[in-house]
């Protein structure tokens, strides 16, 4: 089972990475996650983010992730401590 964390996007690090202020963690996650994590996006499902990754830049990423509540499905953590994750805008699905 994939580890999942949720939280709000914060500082932009590069066109495909940002800081996540973690607010929720899935019960049963295998790893521990701190309150602030660096996330590198390996796949995105976020309103406003172009499908083509070559069109991503810091400004677009900021518009789409700053303060936004995001779900990160974690693939791995690299040697620098950066989390590689599938990132989606969480819980806008309506009722």
């Amino acid at each position: 089972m994939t580890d999942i964390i949720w939280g709000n996007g914060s500082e932009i690090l590069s066109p495909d990475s940002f800081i996540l202020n973690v607010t929720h963690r899935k019960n049963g996650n295998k790893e521990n996650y701190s309150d602030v994590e660096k996330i590198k996006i390996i796949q995105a499902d976020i309103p406003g983010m172009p499908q083509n990754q070559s069109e991503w830049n810091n400004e677009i990423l900021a518009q789409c992730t700053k303060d936004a509540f995001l779900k990160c499905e974690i693939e791995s953590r690299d040697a620098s401590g950066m989390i590689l994750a599938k990132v989606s805008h969480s819980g806008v699905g309506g009722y």
Partner: protein
Amino acid sequence: MWAPIYSDNRKIKYSDFKQILEGEIPGIVIKKFYSENQCDEILKKIKEYEITCFEDSKLEHIGPFLMSYTTRKEKYLDKSKEFQKTTHLIFEKVENPFNRINKLINLSLPSFSISIARESERDMSPFVIRVHRKGKSIPIHKDNVNYEGKEYSIADIEYQLSCVIHLQESEFGGDVIIYKNKWNRKHEKYRNIDFGYSSQVASKESCKIEGIEKGDLVIINPNYFHQVTEILGEIPRITLGMFLGIYQKDQRIVVWA
């Protein structure tokens, strides 16, 4: 006191619209927007649709709504097209809600034009019917297409209103509560995982909209936090919802769900 305006004559004053947009009132209730007989006719058709299409499962929605398709525009537009047949079926004998809202706007805001919102030269879904059964509640939330629907052209509207027609009320529960607290991006830190927000966004000043009856239309500013309390009765709460997007400068209103 923060209280809604009630109207019996299917007309709203421009000043009422202004008050709701500015949060000076929590809502407007148009009594008997549909008559009891008209609601019964619509409910009969919904029941027929449910039996045909949802034999083994519990129907919760009829029609697509944009928030379920924020990053899947083509799918939403395909579903909106499919839904057109269903809307003709359900409103075969009763005037459809878009036409009725159109008349309300023509009477109340005669300088505004109104149309179904379009995207990629295709019509969006004009409304969604929700069937909420015992135990269901809708947590505190807001609706804001500028923020969540940014892949759609209607994300550039100046104001958004929510219109909900109450086709059937449950015997107990299912109350609409509006909080005098307008959403902003900073509130995103109070989000729940699945949907909605923690009770920390609930302001002390709030309004339970009283006296909603079958056939009434309730208009709120959905950018203010709101919720529906748990349905406690055996009779499902059935509503029809649509949004109005207002382009003030262009004197134009678009409708979608």
